[in-house]
């Protein structure tokens, strides 16, 4: 009797507490990071398009898509380990290595090309898997493990391509770096891309379509799988995840393998785009560091547990768009690096603003 009163009353104030916290606003706040990134990107990009002599045309879109694709994929790759609260410093190296492999294999008859592409994707995944093994069975911190493996992968890349060069299938290279119509035309599909039903999409750049496919067919299923969920769980609280009987090791291996796969796809595209391979150490480094920046701008927390590869794609786009604008405006060439640095610093520091909202200082530490 007293009990009844007790429970019902007990629930009441708490319910209020909950409501106070879990309105629409809270949901938004969960995605604040990614939304911020999106806003930043739209602002910068529309500004660029609006001021471009040929703004809002197919060519510009294609050119930008081509430029952004590799970085976008490498950033997606970086996201997965970061969700597990680990960094992967080898994404740039894996991209480079796969690019070098592609410059040897992706050429010749359709069969050979298909085979080459499969090998490229497989070896990207294999590199990732190797990282996973070092982390899981070697029990070495991801950031260091991948720092080491990246050196090894660069070594292999240098062996495959002591000096830049190689060849990839020209039509394929042209097709994947153009819009849908060109793609169809190159391979004589859909009556050379003139099919009526195709026209609404004819202007879409192929890289964007590839990106969308990768997200829909690989990333989304991953996040909705138990393994994917486990990755988030590990980033959030590894011990607890283990106690809950989750497959920790499998998830870690899967995560790094997926990272390798994405990075590999990036490398494959870069090879197609440049129809060559180049074991360029500074370039690999640049991609790795940019991928980290992209991940953060995309609203993924470096301490793990929350974020999304889609955010990282947006982050990558933000980074690219910053430099787009230098081509439109007259910035003294020797001041460009400075501006670039400042904008990057500002972009990543935006996250610091949420501190102003923070009321409980303890929330800083997690």
């Amino acid at each position, binding site marked *: 009797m007293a009990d009844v009163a007790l429970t019902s009353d007990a629930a009441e104030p708490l319910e209020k507490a909950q409501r106070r916290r879990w309105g629409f606003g809270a949901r938004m706040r969960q995605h604040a990071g990614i939304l911020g990134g999106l806003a930043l990107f739209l602002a910068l990009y529309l500004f660029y398009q609006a001021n471009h002599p040929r703004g809002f045309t197919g060519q510009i879109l294609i050119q930008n898509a081509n430029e952004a694709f590799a970085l976008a994929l490498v950033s997606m790759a970086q996201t997965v380990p970061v969700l597990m609260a680990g960094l992967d410093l080898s994404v740039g190296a894996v991209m480079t290595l796969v690019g070098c492999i592609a410059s040897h294999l992706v050429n010749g008859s359709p069969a050979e090309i298909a085979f080459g592409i499969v090998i490229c994707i497989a070896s990207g995944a294999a590199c990732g898997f190797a990282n996973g093994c070092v982390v899981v069975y070697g029990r070495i*911190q991801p950031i260091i493990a991948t720092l*080491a493996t990246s*050196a090894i992968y660069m070594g292999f890349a240098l062996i495959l391509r002591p000096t830049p060069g190689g060849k990839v299938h020209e039509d394929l290279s042209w097709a994947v770096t153009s819009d849908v119509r060109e793609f169809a035309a190159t391979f004589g599909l859909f009556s050379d891309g003139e099919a009526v039903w195709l026209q609404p999409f004819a202007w879409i750049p192929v890289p964007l379509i590839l990106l969308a496919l990768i997200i829909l067919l690989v990333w989304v299923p991953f996040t909705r799988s138990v393994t994917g969920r486990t990755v988030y769980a590990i980033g959030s609280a590894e011990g607890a995840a283990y106690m809950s009987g989750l497959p920790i090791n499998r998830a870690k291996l899967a995560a790094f393998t997926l990272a390798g796969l994405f990075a590999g796809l990036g490398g494959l595209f870069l090879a197609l785009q440049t129809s060559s391979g180049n074991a360029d150490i500074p370039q690999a480094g640049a991609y790795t560091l940019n991928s980290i920046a992209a991940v953060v701008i995309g609203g993924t927390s470096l301490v793990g547990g929350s974020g999304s590869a889609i955010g990282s794609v947006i982050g990558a786009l933000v980074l690219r768009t910053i430099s787009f604008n230098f081509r439109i405006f007259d910035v003294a060439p020797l001041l460009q690096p400075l501006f*670039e640095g400042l904008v990057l610093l500002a972009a990543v520091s935006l996250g610091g603003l949420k501190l102003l909202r923070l009321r409980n200082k303890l929330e800083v530490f997690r």
Partner: protein
Amino acid sequence: MSKTATIPAPQGFRLKPDDKPVIFAAGFVLLILLVGTGYTMLTQGSAPLLQPQYLLQQLQVGSFLGIVAAGLMLVILLGHIDLSVPWTLTAAAMMATAVGGPWAIPVGLGIGLLVGIVNGLGVAYLRVPSMIFTLGMNAVMRGLMVAHTGGFAPQTAATDLMQYLAVARIGGVIPVALLVWLAVSALVVVILTRTTLGRAIYAIGNRERAAYLSGIDTNRVILIAFALSGAAAGLAGVLLAGYSTKAYQGMGDPYLLPAIAAVVIGGTNILGGRGRYLGTLVGVILIVLLNSVLSIMQMPEAGRQIIYGTVIIAMLLVYGRGERVTG
């Protein structure tokens, strides 16, 4: 150094686990020397690597990396990282030579300190991940230096004092640079083992939340650590300029990754909270000798890269392994 209760031992063992890195790294240093000597024996029939002047020269060259690593270690112990080292170092060197005269060195150190403080502010007070903020700072410093060189055609000649510190040898034997390195090392050891600052650094590296609730001003500690790291980079820049008698664009680029590797090979936990300076010291020597011997053996770049990677993994497999998760 001896009684470092601050360095936690997982399973109740005491000093053993943190001696391991030092011992193994030292062993590996010997191995490198032996391999190198084997090579020279075969090619020249002489063993120059075992002669004191070679080793002293390596220590002289190594002291630049050593000083960078010493500063970086403070930051890594916090569980942070400082990617702005390359262009902090360069900026310090370039500004020092640009100013020249008696003010050269103070200015160089000042620049380092300044960049460090900005890093500290960003990381501690804005709570931007150090990984990213220092990356941005690195880009900014590069931008500044490009504009500086392009715009002002600065003087780039190192002052005599800078050259003295970097290349002079006391009695023609002991490199002054080495003494500078040792001085810095002594300072870091004292900070880490004997001061409240050091204790706070380890505490924050382990669990900042608890440190904060113990009334430690964690933001201030982070700020100081980054400032010190910056200053160390600045000092290294000044010395390096002295060594090559001038400051030039990009002179800091070859120092970041080796420094990180040295700290980690020395047994410092990259996530912070654990590690002793002696390890870093040995780690630096290991990296420097490895570089030198590979260069002597005319190892092609590919081989170098693969060997670096393998060495780091191998060393960590021996002693750098984390605990298996069980709740």
